[in-house]
């Protein structure tokens, strides 16, 4: 798929990996829908527009199906096609299991997993009609391996991998594709908060001995959008952390 003039929605794209993905698609000539719970900053929008593409900023809470439907309807009011949807929005709320309340667990599931479902569901009707489109869902290596203090996050990301495969099988009937990316330790605001000692321990376990960059994750999103024969896959971007 040539990405020029395509419309790409990236949820949770006002910062971090989501923003890097939005910028990477803009560099390829795609028009971008930025999304977050709150409006994007002027700098973010200008950075996207600097690639000579159109940038729409549509804030919506992805845990709210009605708000998601309004966002998708709004995209189709602005342009007659939505080609790629990157489900990136997600949260963490790390706690050991014995300290994790049901609310701590379900909030993470609701945003990361149910939120991804809400966005995909709202897109299906117009995308089935168009007989084309691709979903890229942000999973995590934690969804493959599990992690201490991250039962909620791991469950949500493992769920995304199962969701991805099911959507891939169902939507393939109409020529749509669905894949997932499972990043490892990526240099973002989230990992910057880690204590130096913890970071050093993690780096020990990564064969490439460094954190990944948001751009390296974005490259995989571009690849999955461009290649029309890959579907139902989860691509890890982790410096070798989970290789078997």
């Amino acid at each position, binding site marked *: 798929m040539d990405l020029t003039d395509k419309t790409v929605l990236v949820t949770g794209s006002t910062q971090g990996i989501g923003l890097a993905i939005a910028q990477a698609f803009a560099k390829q000539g795609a028009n971008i829908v930025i999304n977050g719970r709150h409006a994007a900053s002027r700098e973010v929008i200008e950075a996207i527009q600097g690639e000579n593409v159109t940038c729409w900023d549509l804030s919506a809470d992805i845990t709210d199906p009605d708000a998601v439907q309004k966002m998708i309807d709004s995209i189709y009011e602005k342009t007659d096609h939505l080609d790629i949807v990157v489900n990136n929005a997600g949260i963490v709320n790390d706690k050991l299991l014995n300290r994790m309340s049901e609310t701590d667990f379900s909030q993470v599931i609701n945003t990361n997993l149910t939120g991804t479902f809400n966005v995909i569901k709202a897109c299906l*009707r117009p995308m*089935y*009609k168009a007989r084309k489109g691709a979903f890229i869902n942000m999973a995590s290596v934690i969804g493959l391996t599990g992690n201490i203090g991250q039962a909620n996050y791991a469950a949500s990301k493992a769920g995304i991998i199962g969701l991805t495969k099911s959507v891939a099988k169902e939507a393939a009937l109409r020529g749509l594709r669905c894949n997932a990316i499972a990043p490892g330790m990526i240099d973002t605001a989230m990992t910057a908060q880690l204590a130096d000692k913890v970071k050093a321990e993690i780096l020990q376990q990564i064969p490439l001995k460094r954190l990944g960059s948001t751009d390296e994750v974005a490259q995989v999103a571009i690849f999955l959008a461009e290649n029309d024969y890959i579907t139902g896959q989860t691509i890890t971007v982790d410096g070798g952390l989970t290789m078997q």
Partner: protein
Amino acid sequence: MTNDEIFSKVQAIIVDQTGEDADKVTMTTNIKQDLDADSLDIFEVINEIEDEFDIKIETEEGIETVSDLVTFVEKQLAAKDKE
């Protein structure tokens, strides 16, 4: 809207969705079996009908034939008129 008018519109939508000839789509046609339509075809036919008639079809349960669809639309339109 008369029953015939509803049928004509439903027939046109099914023809467009399944690529079948119009004369194969009659009131007694079983959408899945006679037209070899899959679940997504039915989903899309229902979506188109919702848009065409401005009604909401919450479930496709009980909808097997074209006649079932026409009757459903008829009832929904009558209920809408009462509102």
